[in-house]
C-alpha cells in the first residue's frame, strides 16, 4: 500500500508541485481581484437608491444562486464560442489568449469571489453602529472620509472570520479548473489517476496538500484577525487575585 504512495509521490512529484503552484496562483489572483471588485459592489449594494443597488443585487444574486461549474462552462464554452465566431478573430494576435482556459477560469473565479465577498461586506457595512456614523457626520466628515476612516476599518474587523471562510471556499473552487483541462492540483491528480490507475494514492496526496494549504491559510488569517482587533484587547482586571486561581 505505501509502496504505491511512494511510487506516485516519487514519480509524479513535479506534476503535483506544478499543480500546487497553479492552484496558489489562481487563488491569490482570484481573491485579490475579487476583493477589489467586491468593494464598489458592496458600497453600491447598500445604497438607498434603488437604481444604484439593483445591478449589484442582481449580480450577487445570480452568482450566488448558480453553481460555479456552470458559470465556468458558461464562460469557457459559451462565451468562448461567441468569441470564436467573431470574424477574423482566429487570425488576430489576441487569439492565443482568447482560447486559453486560464483566462476564462480566472475571470469566472474573480467574478464569483467578488459576488460572495460583496455579500459579506454588505452585512459588515450595515452592521457598523449608527452612533459611529452620526459621530463621523458630526465631526464634519464627508461620506468618502467616513468610509475610509470609520466604515471600512469597522467592516474588516467584523467580516474577517467570514472572509477567511470565503478565501478557503475560493481555494476549493479552484479545483474546478480541472474540468476545463487546467492542470492545477486536482487536475494533476486526475492525470496521475489516468496514467497509473491508483485513485487513492493520487487523490489522497492532493487532498493532503489542500489540507496543508487550508490550515496554513487559517493560521495566517487568525494572526491578521488579532491585528485587526488590536484596539479591542480587553484590559486585564487589576484585582489582587492570584493568577493561579483560574487553573
Amino acid at each position, binding site marked *: 500500500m505505501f509502496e504505491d504512495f511512494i511510487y506516485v509521490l516519487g514519480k509524479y512529484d513535479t506534476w503535483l508541485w506544478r499543480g500546487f503552484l497553479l492552484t496558489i496562483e489562481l487563488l491569490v489572483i482570484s481573491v485579490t481581484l475579487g476583493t477589489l471588485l467586491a468593494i464598489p459592489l458592496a458600497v453600491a449594494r447598500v445604497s438607498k437608491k434603488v437604481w444604484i443597488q439593483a445591478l449589484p443585487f442582481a449580480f450577487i444574486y445570480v452568482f450566488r*444562486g448558480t453553481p460555479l*461549474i*456552470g458559470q465556468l462552462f458558461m464562460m469557457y464554452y459559451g462565451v468562448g*464560442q*461567441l468569441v470564436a465566431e467573431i470574424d477574423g478573430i482566429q487570425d488576430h494576435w489576441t487569439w492565443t489568449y482568447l482560447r486559453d482556459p486560464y483566462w476564462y477560469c480566472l475571470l469566472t473565479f474573480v467574478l464569483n469571489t467578488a459576488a460572495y465577498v460583496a455579500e459579506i461586506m454588505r452585512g459588515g457595512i450595515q452592521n457598523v453602529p449608527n452612533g459611529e456614523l452620526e459621530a463621523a457626520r458630526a465631526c464634519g466628515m464627508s461620506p468618502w472620509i467616513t468610509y475610509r476612516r470609520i466604515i471600512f476599518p469597522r467592516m474588516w474587523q467584523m467580516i474577517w472570520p467570514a472572509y477567511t471562510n470565503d478565501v478557503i471556499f475560493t481555494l476549493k473552487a479552484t479545483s*474546478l479548473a480541472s474540468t476545463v483541462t487546467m492542470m492545477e492540483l*486536482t487536475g494533476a491528480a486526475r492525470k496521475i*489517476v489516468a496514467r497509473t490507475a491508483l485513485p487513492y494514492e493520487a*487523490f489522497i496526496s492532493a487532498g493532503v496538500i*489542500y489540507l496543508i494549504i487550508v490550515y496554513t491559510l487559517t493560521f495566517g488569517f487568525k494572526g491578521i484577525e488579532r491585528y485587526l482587533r488590536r484596539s479591542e484587547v480587553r484590559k486585564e482586571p487589576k484585582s489582587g487575585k492570584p493568577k493561579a486561581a483560574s487553573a
Partner: protein
Amino acid sequence: MLDLYGRGWQMLEGGLVTVQLCLTVLPFMIVIGLLGASAKLSRYRTLRVIGESYTVLIRGIPELLVILLIYFGGTIAVQSLAELISGEETRVDIPAFWSGVAALALVQGAFASEVFRAAMQSIPLGQIEAATACGMTPMQVFMRIKLPQLWRFALPGLNNLFQVLIKDTALISVVGVEEIMRKAAIGAGTEKAPFTFYLVAMLMFLSFTTVSLLVFNYLEKRAARGVARA
C-alpha cells in the same frame, strides 16, 4: 430556440435528476450531521476526536476531489471487500448516482454537524437539567427537549447548506450522472450551441435555489411562530 433543438425535455429530465439528488442527500446529510454534532459534544474523548477530525478533514478538501475519490476509489474498495467475502474475483459497479450521493452526504454532513452543534449549544442548559430532574433518560431528553428546538435553531444554517447542496450537485456531472449540467453539456456538444444550453442550465439552477430560499424562509417563520418576539 425555445424547444432547445428538441432537447427541452432532456433538460427537464436533468432537472428531475438534480431534484432527486438533492432530496436523496438531504436525509443522509441530516442524520450524519446529527451524529457528528452528538459526537463533538460527547462526554467521551474518543468520540469528540472522531467528530472533530471528520469535519476538519472534510472541510479542507475540495468537494470535487471527494466526489472523484469516492467514485474511483469506492469501486475498488467495495470490489475488494466483495472479493474478501466471496473469496472469488468479482466485478462491482457502483452507480455514479449513488457514489455521488455518498460523496455529497459526506461533505454536507460535515458542515451540517457544525450547524447542529451550534444549535444544540443554544438550547438553554436549564431545560436539559429540568428534564433530567424529571427522570428522563438521555434518549428521551434528546427526543423530547432537544430535537424539537434544534429544528428552530438549525434552520437558518440548513437553509444555507441546502443552497450549497443544490449547487454542489452540479459537480456530480463530472462523473457522468445525467443531471442538469451533464444534459446541458451533451446538448451543447451535439447541437454546437453551448451558450444557449448553459444559459438554460443556469436559469434552472437559479430557479431551484430561489424556490429553496422561499421554502426555507417560510419554514423559518413557521418554526418561530411560538416564540415571543423581543
